[in-house]
């Protein structure tokens, strides 16, 4: 594999998140030094060039998330300072005193550190979910996608209970990216040491459904894999106990249909609709299998992230390594590569898909 290209972001403290935009031509880094930096890919030199840097928050910036480019160059950041801020690139510098990025909105409902944010998949509109140390997941929606200054708090899901409301509890979330599933969120539930799948039921209420268990410590990150045509869903979790876990969510109904005959696919749309009608979305339940559980990091794992196609999982932790995981046939997950900043990339096993 290729060498690691070192990249000097110039932050004065820990970088907590890097986020590519939809097209992969932009990168935003956010750090404890309270600065946000946006980088553009220079196609000529193939280097990242600083677009702008500015002080974004009053405390450590924990995460950044890009909105779909349909809504413009917009991203959100969240911070220890208990706020979520929405940033938009300005085409005309005249009104902003030369600043390229302006704060369009500040969402300050949280009573604790906002620990994770993520824009919903595009088909749900311009929606943003945030979760904070006060144990509440908040879902905002931009009423006017042109204005971006008014965000309505659509839902508040109380995911923390009792002890998990402590300030050092850690919450994280990830949207289900599939457009053919009801709205779902995977949420890491603080000190309960579990992650749960919440689903918007037919009464427009978020209800907990499946539980992703087996963790021995706080779930530090959760990532829902993009589904590009698989019949099941994959969710990965990182935990303070040093493990990376992958959960497979199989839709029992679909499965039943498939078992009924290979011709199941051919059942007319009307019949499919009837089946769906018989089992209202709220009652549909996934069967949860833990398909992988790795402790290779041997230290707190902080991040799990799927690649764009949802076939390879990356995990990173306090051991200073990024590990890549990929399923071989029959759902056997294996480490295919270990990346570390110093020695470049170690190649483990087959060289991924071709």
């Amino acid at each position, binding site marked *: *594999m*290729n060498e*690691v*290209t*070192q*990249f000097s972001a110039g932050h*004065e*403290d*820990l*970088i*907590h*998140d*890097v986020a*590519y935009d*939809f*097209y*992969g031509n932009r*990168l935003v*880094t956010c*750090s404890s030094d309270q600065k946000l930096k946006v980088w553009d890919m220079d196609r000529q030199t193939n280097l*990242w060039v600083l677009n702008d840097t500015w002080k974004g928050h*009053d*405390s*450590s910036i*924990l995460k950044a998330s890009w909105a779909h480019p349909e809504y413009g160059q917009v991203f959100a950041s969240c911070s220890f300072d*208990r706020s979520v801020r929405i940033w938009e690139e300005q085409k005309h510098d005249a009104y902003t005193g030369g600043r390229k990025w302006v704060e369009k909105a500040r969402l300050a409902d949280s009573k604790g*550190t906002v620990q994770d944010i993520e824009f919903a998949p595009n088909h749900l509109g311009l929606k943003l979910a945030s979760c904070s140390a006060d144990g509440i997941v908040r879902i905002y929606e931009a009423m006017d996608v042109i204005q971006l200054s008014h965000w309505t708090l659509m839902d508040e899901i109380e995911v923390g209970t009792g002890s998990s409301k402590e*300030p*050092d509890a850690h919450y994280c979330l990830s949207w289900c990216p599939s*457009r*053919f599933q009801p709205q779902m969120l995977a949420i890491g539930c603080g000190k309960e040491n579990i992650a749960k799948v919440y689903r918007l039921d037919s009464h427009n209420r978020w209800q907990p459904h499946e539980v992703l268990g087996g963790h021995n410590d706080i779930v530090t*990150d959760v990532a829902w894999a993009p*589904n*590009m*045509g*698989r019949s099941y869903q994959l969710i990965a979790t990182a935990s303070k106990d040093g493990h990376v876990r992958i959960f497979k969510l199989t839709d029992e109904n679909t499965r039943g249909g498939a078992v009924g005959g*290979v011709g199941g*696919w*051919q059942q007319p749309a009307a019949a*499919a609709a009837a089946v769906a009608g018989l089992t209202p979305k709220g009652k549909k339940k996934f069967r949860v299998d833990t398909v992988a559980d790795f402790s290779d990091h041997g*230290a707190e794992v902080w991040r799990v*992230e799927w*690649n*764009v*196609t949802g*076939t*390879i999982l*990356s995990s*990173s932790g*306090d*051991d*200073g390594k*990024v590990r890549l995981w*990929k399923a071989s046939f029959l759902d056997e997950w294996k480490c295919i590569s270990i*990346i570390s*900043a110093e020695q470049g*990339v170690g190649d483990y096993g087959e060289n*991924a*898909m*071709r």
Partner: protein
Amino acid sequence: MKKAVLSNIVPSKGSSIRQQLLGSTDSGGQPSETASTSRHGVGESLTGSQSLASTGPGGDKTAVPSTLQRPVRFRLTGALSALSASPEQDWVAVAGREVLKILSVYDKDVKEVLNLRGGVKLNLNFSINDVKWGNIFAKSTIATAATNGAVAIWDLNRPNAQKLERILTEHTRAVNRINFHPTEPVLLLSASQDGTMRLWDLRAKSIARNAFEGKAESVRDVQFSPTNTFEFVAAFENGTIQKWDIRYPTQYERKWSAHNGLALTVDWHPEGRWVASGGRDRQIKIWDMKSDSRKPLYAIQTIAPVSRVNWRPGHESQLACCALSTDFRIHTWDVGRPYIAQHSIEAHDGVITGFLWRDANSIWSCSKDRTFARHDIRTGYKPLSLLNTCAVNWNVNGDITFAIDERRQDPAMEDSRAMPTGSNYPLRRAFRKPMVPERSTSDDKIPQHRPRQKVGVVDTETFDDYAFVVLAQDYAIESDDIWSSCQHNAEVAIDLELHRTAQTWKILQLLYGTEPSESRNLTKLFGHPNKQDDHNWDRQAGNTPVGRATDVDPQLTVGSAQSDSALLTEMMRPNAEGWMRDYVVPHGSQRRGSLSPHHDQQELVTESDIDSDEGYTEEEQHDDDGDSDDSESSFTYGLKVGAGRRTLARFGIGTNKILKPFYGGKSNQNQSHSKRDSSKGRHKHSQRTVKSAKVVHQDVVIPLWNPEDLVRDMLEYYAEQANVQMCATILLVLKDRIRAGEEKEELWFCSYIDLLHRFKLWTAATAIIRACPLASVRVRNQESTTLHTICCHCGKPMPNIHTPNWACESCGKLQNPCSFCHKTAKGLYIWCQGCAHGGHLDCLKEWFSHSLECCTGCGHQCVSKFFALPRGVL
């Protein structure tokens, strides 16, 4: 020298003070000894009174407790606004608008010792803003500052009802802060909302010795220097902090514009060189009192207005702060790491109004939530432990950007700047030479934390974005001719050395394609001379053993691509189960179970769309020939389809599902065929008829092989690999011949389109949307696509309606009329690409028949002399 100093301080009323001082220094041998021997870990960063705890019950606190102190809380009857610890006992005075009490803090709990408001009626004089316990030389004195400007002095040694010694009322507005001199028990400084600071000599009768006017709005905080007898700093509401010398009461010595908005608090560093200030701009700034620099040495941004700052004893670079609002925590910071707090304690449920360090770890605090609390900062949490040390993100093209930290700092390391336990951290006295010299230069800075995190970008090579883009652009998707589409796609894939993909296309080509008619002649040429030139032959062409070799791109023949030839070889091998496993489907094992030996012998006849039995027969015979040729033809790519299919059949692929015409009902044809009815239903019908006829004719039972399952498995395989490009393209090329379920297909298409969008392949994406058989996908080209038009004259937007806008509604002018006749050009419009003028074909024809230049007079020569239209040509 002392006397000289004293006379400087007290030029007018020197005698009494001198007596007092001399008395205290004379007898002060004892307390100073106590201080120098027993202190450590407790600086005098706080007001002098607070830092001096030590003899008596508190004496055992000289060692930093190795065990964590349990937090204790004590609830009072009213909101608290300030607290102050007794210099040498574990007592604390807490005060609020309705409260003034002395509490005794024990290891496990807190008890009320004395209520100073017990006998006193509600009185604005006791609506307390601040309380201070006298210093070590005035252990029984307590001063309180009230919101009405009164400063009350209490003597705890007096009998109960008379503890209030006196009330100083010179301030006209609320007194915000009072501060005892660290060494002079009789000097008290007060800072008031009225903009003045007053220095009181408690021996004098209720008249302030000095009034200092900051001329900078209200004074929020004031504090004596711990090392210099004469200096104090004050914080003002206009954001400045000022350093004063009490010997020069008319003018401040230095001033810094410290904060935007109110400066709320100041605290001297125990070593006397630095001052930390906090303001409503949510910043803590550290200033060098000896420097003229307008910039702070360090700045710490916090999340809430900073109401109090206190240096941590024993940790020269650390301080703690609490907030004026919103944040009910006490944070400790290290100026070397200004972005991440060292500790955070959720001390109270309300705004914290005051806190003090009791020792290096113990914090006493009071709050508007009516409680007094003691916390060990080590029982709080470390924000650093909540922060992830790494970040990873995937780019669309498989690049990973990461920021990773090798190892988090050892927790012990974090306190490395802490003074070693037991070290002597001496009190510096005004009249003694400081034992630790003051910082000599401001260059002597606390080393700033440098993150060791490494940031890098690596191409994981897990996604061939180049191939993806090329395939997306070059794949043939819209042609009706499956044969040539597959051929094209295979070639595209081969060019990219994607052998498996190419192979897939070749297989699909064999399964579903129909060889183009040109090969017909070759077919004849290659050895079916007897064969009638039958139209039906075309449709069977896929089955002919010959001709293929010449038809196939040489690249695809043997040796061109390893995997291809390998695959071919394996295909030729009987019982090549390995091929099954490796190349066809991931679930091959399940399939193998259904393998039937009979298929080997059974003649597989491809369904063909024949109308005449004659033609059919020949086809059969021909297939027979092909069988025998199997081994020979194995070295060419031109194996006959029949053989290939038979090979597949050997493995039982799809043989259990039969009786469906192999060539899908609609297999389409680019050749026109007069005899064939294009209607699907009728077509099928005719096929069925033919089939039965055939069986009778041949007297062989032929299980028809349906490749649909194979292809579906293939699709599943690619879906599993998330290769939606393949899935979607196959679906498009094969059109209705294969269905994978509407939901799945839509998922594949949408995923593919999204992926194309991510690579900015708009054209390819639009082509996919247009070609997609699913209405739900096709509709995407219609929705959220808007064409806006504006008037070319006035620039006003034109109404977005479906009828053409001939004229602008706002200016009334015609849009782009004919340049010649100035009427609207409906229908054909031609224009000159040079000057962009144009109009009716007829008009311009007429004009250019006698002119070379534009009819508008723009001067452009639209028609070249040499190509001038001959009259009457157009």
